[in-house]
Structures are given as C-alpha cells and as structure tokens.
C-alpha cells in the first residue's frame, strides 16, 4: 500500500474543498437533529463524531433512481406511436467522505448482487465505480454497535478506499484501495508515518471497547431450523410495527421496486427502495400474499441477512453490524436478540 498520510483538523476544509471542486462530495451534516449525507457546503461543518442517522447508501443506490425516461411520439392519425428511451446509466463521480466503516462495508453485500456475473446491473456498476469512500474509523462505540459480530470491526477497511483514523489533532489517512490513492495527492495532506502507531492504538482500543462477540456462527442453520416455527416468529415480531425504518436505514438492504410514472405521452421508470417489512413487498397481483403477517416478514429479514444470503455468498453475513435497525426502530426491535434467540433455541 501507498504511503501513510496525515490530515489535521485545520487543513481538513482545504482538502474537502479540493475534493468538492472536482466531483460530488458527500459529507455527513446535521439536519433537524438527524445526520445525513449531503453535498459539501463549506459554510456547514460536517459531523464526524457520531455515526450518521442514515448511511451513505443513497450515494450509490438512491432511494429513487430514474432508470430511464420514455417518450411516445405520434405523427398524425392512426400512426403507430414511436417510443424513445433515454437511459440514465451514467453516474456522477462522487466522494463519500466521513462514513463509518460499517456504512461503506454495506456495499460489499450489494456488490455480490449487482456486480455478479449473472445479472450485472449497469446503473449500480456505474455509480459504484464512480464513487470513492473515504471512511473514518471509529474511536467510540455505541450500545447498538455490533460490527464485531458479523466479521467486521470499528476500523474495517473492507468496502472503503481511504481509511481515516482519528488521532490527536487530526486523522491518519491510509489508502486501502487503488481507487483511493489518487486522493492522497492533495497538498493538504502531510506524511503520517509518525502517527501510525497512535492510530493503531486507537483502533485496538475501540475494538476492545466492543468486547467479545457471542458466537453466532451457527446462525445459518439455526434460523433455517426455525423456518416453520411461526410461534417463535410471532414472539420475535410481536412488537414490530411493520415500518421500513430498519430496511431503509440499513447499509446492506438492497431490495427495490420498479414503477412507471407516466403523464400524457412521456414518463419515467423509477427504481426505488423497497422494504420487506411492508405488506406490499410480496403482495401478488391476485391479492394473495405469501408473507401476510409481520411474523413472516421479520422472519425473512433476519433469515435473509443471517442465513439465506450467507448460504449463497460464501458465508458472508448480509449485515454490517451498524445497529441502525436497533437504534432507529420506533419500538426497539433488536436483531441481535432475535439471532441469539434462534441460535439458543437450536442449541437447546
């Protein structure tokens, strides 16, 4: 890997301005009490201390993406309409700056779905390739953090291009991918070799603060074993109110819905986030719904992340442990508890 750099707090705006000059720069900012990723505005200080309320998922996979616009044309009477499609596959070069490792790591789960050989998704690929993640390793941990349960950690570089680790006066900057290296060229950055040891200490300390993770290595089998145990799922889902907060705030939830919105002779095709917690997610045209209750739906959400996806993808758990689903759930449904309950029940 390339040289290790250092950026001071004072120099950071200079770097950010430089980055913003060349591309879209998304940084976490406070908005009405929530922290969200927005285009960098020098007048507004980014918030790096705590994890953003919403992860930077939308940078690559927007809440609603216009896949293409369409226009029907007609020439006079009884003519067959012509159809013109305008696909929106190009993506704006983007830097996502200041996400936590878990937020960036979420895209690893996406990549296997949208960049696989079977169904490569041009929209996703374009956006993914145009986006660079400058991630900040954590120096504090919250009650809802559980990245260490799922094979990650507070300084996990997976999915990131640069990793910044907080040290006294600023951050140690490491390139963790080839894509990230060019960003190090900024004159705002200085050599960071002297800070490397301090950074390692911060990483170790933060990791230690998380404590030991429980053994959930049997989650794949344990959850499958509960597949038909609807009493179990009723108990787990009793308090769930079937909203989409957990899904939409999840850095790894990649499901979408497609709708056409037309008016007159033109319109657009939208790909928008979908949530498996909603009744409509599996509602069939006939009116039948294979997942009619919230118990069915919560079973799917937990099962998908901790059993079905890992089964298909080399054991990779489709969860980055950021804890947003726990923290932002209006009724504090705790996915950790559900997985543990299933594991415990399988052992019993």
């Amino acid at each position, binding site marked *: 890997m390339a040289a290790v750099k250092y950026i001071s707090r004072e120099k950071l705006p200079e770097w950010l301005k430089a980055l913003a000059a060349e591309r879209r720069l998304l940084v976490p900012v*406070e*908005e*009405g*009490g929530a922290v969200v990723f927005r285009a960098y505005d020098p007048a507004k200080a980014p918030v790096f201390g705590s994890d953003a309320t919403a992860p930077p998922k939308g940078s690559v996979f927007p809440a609603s993406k216009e896949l293409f616009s369409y226009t029907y044309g007609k020439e006079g009477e009884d003519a067959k309409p012509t159809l013109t499609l305008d696909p929106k596959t190009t993506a704006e070069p983007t830097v996502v700056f200041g996400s936590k490792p878990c937020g960036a790591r979420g895209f690893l789960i996406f990549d296997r779905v949208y960049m696989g050989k079977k169904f490569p998704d041009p929209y996703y690929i374009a956006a993914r390739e145009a986006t660079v993640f400058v991630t900040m390793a954590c120096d504090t941990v919250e009650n809802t953090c559980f990245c260490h349960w799922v094979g990650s950690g507070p300084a996990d570089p997976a999915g990131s291009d640069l990793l910044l680790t907080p040290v006294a006066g600023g951050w140690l900057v490491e390139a963790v991918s080839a894509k990230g290296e060019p960003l190090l060229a900024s004159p705002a950055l200085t050599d960071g070799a002297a800070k490397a040891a301090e950074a390692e200490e911060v990483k170790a300390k933060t990791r230690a603060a998380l404590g030991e993770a429980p053994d959930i290595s049997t989650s794949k089998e344990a959850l499958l074993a509960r597949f038909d145990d609807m009493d179990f799922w009723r108990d787990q889902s009793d308090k769930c109110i079937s909203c989409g907060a957990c899904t939409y705030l999840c850095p790894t939830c990649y499901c979408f819905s497609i709708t056409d919105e037309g008016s007159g002779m033109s319109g657009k095709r939208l790909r928008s986030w979908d949530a498996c917690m909603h009744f409509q997610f599996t509602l069939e045209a006939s009116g039948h719904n294979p997942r009619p209750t919230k118990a069915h739906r919560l079973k799917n959400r937990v099962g998908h992340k901790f059993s079905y996806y890992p089964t298909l993808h080399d054991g990779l758990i489709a969860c980055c442990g950021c804890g947003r689903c726990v923290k932002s759930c209006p009724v504090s449904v705790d996915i950790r508890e559900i997985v543990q309950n299933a594991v415990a029940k399988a052992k019993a």
Partner: protein
Amino acid sequence: MPVLTGKELRIVGFLCNWCSYGGADTAGVGRFNQPTDLRIIRVPCSGRIDPLFIAKTLINGADGVLVSGCHPRDCHYAEGNFYARRRLEVLKRFLPILGIDPGRFDYTWVSASEGQRWQKVVTAFTEQIHTLGPAPRFDAVAPELLAKVAGAISQGGNRVAA
C-alpha cells in the same frame, strides 16, 4: 401548452354536476364573459371532493383551486355539501401551515340558476390568483430562503425554530 404563458395562471375548479357545473353552464348560456384561466373538473357532488385532491393539486403546482357545490340544504344528494363544507373549511385552514397561501383555495356555493353569481365568483377568484401570482413550489424553494429557514432551525435546536 397548458396555460397561456404570461397571461393565464393554472387554476383548477372542482364543480358538482348538479348545481355549480350547471351554474357555469347557465353563465355560458347567458354569455357572461369570464377569464379563461379556470379548468373545470366535473364531479357528481361536492361531497365527492376529497380535500386531498385540492392539496395534491396545489402541491403539484397549480396556482389556484376553486371548489363549488350546491348551496347548503340544496344538495342533490341531500348531505354531500354539508360534509364538504366541514372538510373544505378544515383544509382551507390547514394550507397556510404547509406554506400554501390560503388565498389560493376557495370554496363556495353556486346553484344551477346562478349564472351571474358564477361569473362573479370566477372573475373574483381569477383576479385573486393573479394578484398572488404564480405559486411558489416546494421543489423550487429559493436557496436563500431555504438557508435562512435552515439557519433558524439549527439555531433553535433539533426540530422547530423556537
């Protein structure tokens, strides 16, 4: 082109079939001149007019919405305008808190015989909308205004500038 740029504004009318649509017909039969901005959507009864249609119309960029039904007690369906009156009044008072000028929406009662009254209502309402001018849009709030309000909000804490 939906409205004549620079001359007309986008005004949508929801009229009940039995009274006000007929009143507008009567105005036509009487050749009572009216501004051309208004586009009328015919519904069976003012009771059919979900206030959300009006909200949707205004949020989607109409400059004005005019609703007219039968006079109270004269509803062809006996009670539709009584329900409408309550719901429309609630909506009218709700609009300003959303940031929509309440002058952009009015509701009234015009009977099938009141062609002249219809002419008066359309003329007065159209004038009123022209005085207000084109409606500002939620998706095009001026950056300066947005910055001002955002500043006030972050000053005042998490939720509302207090």
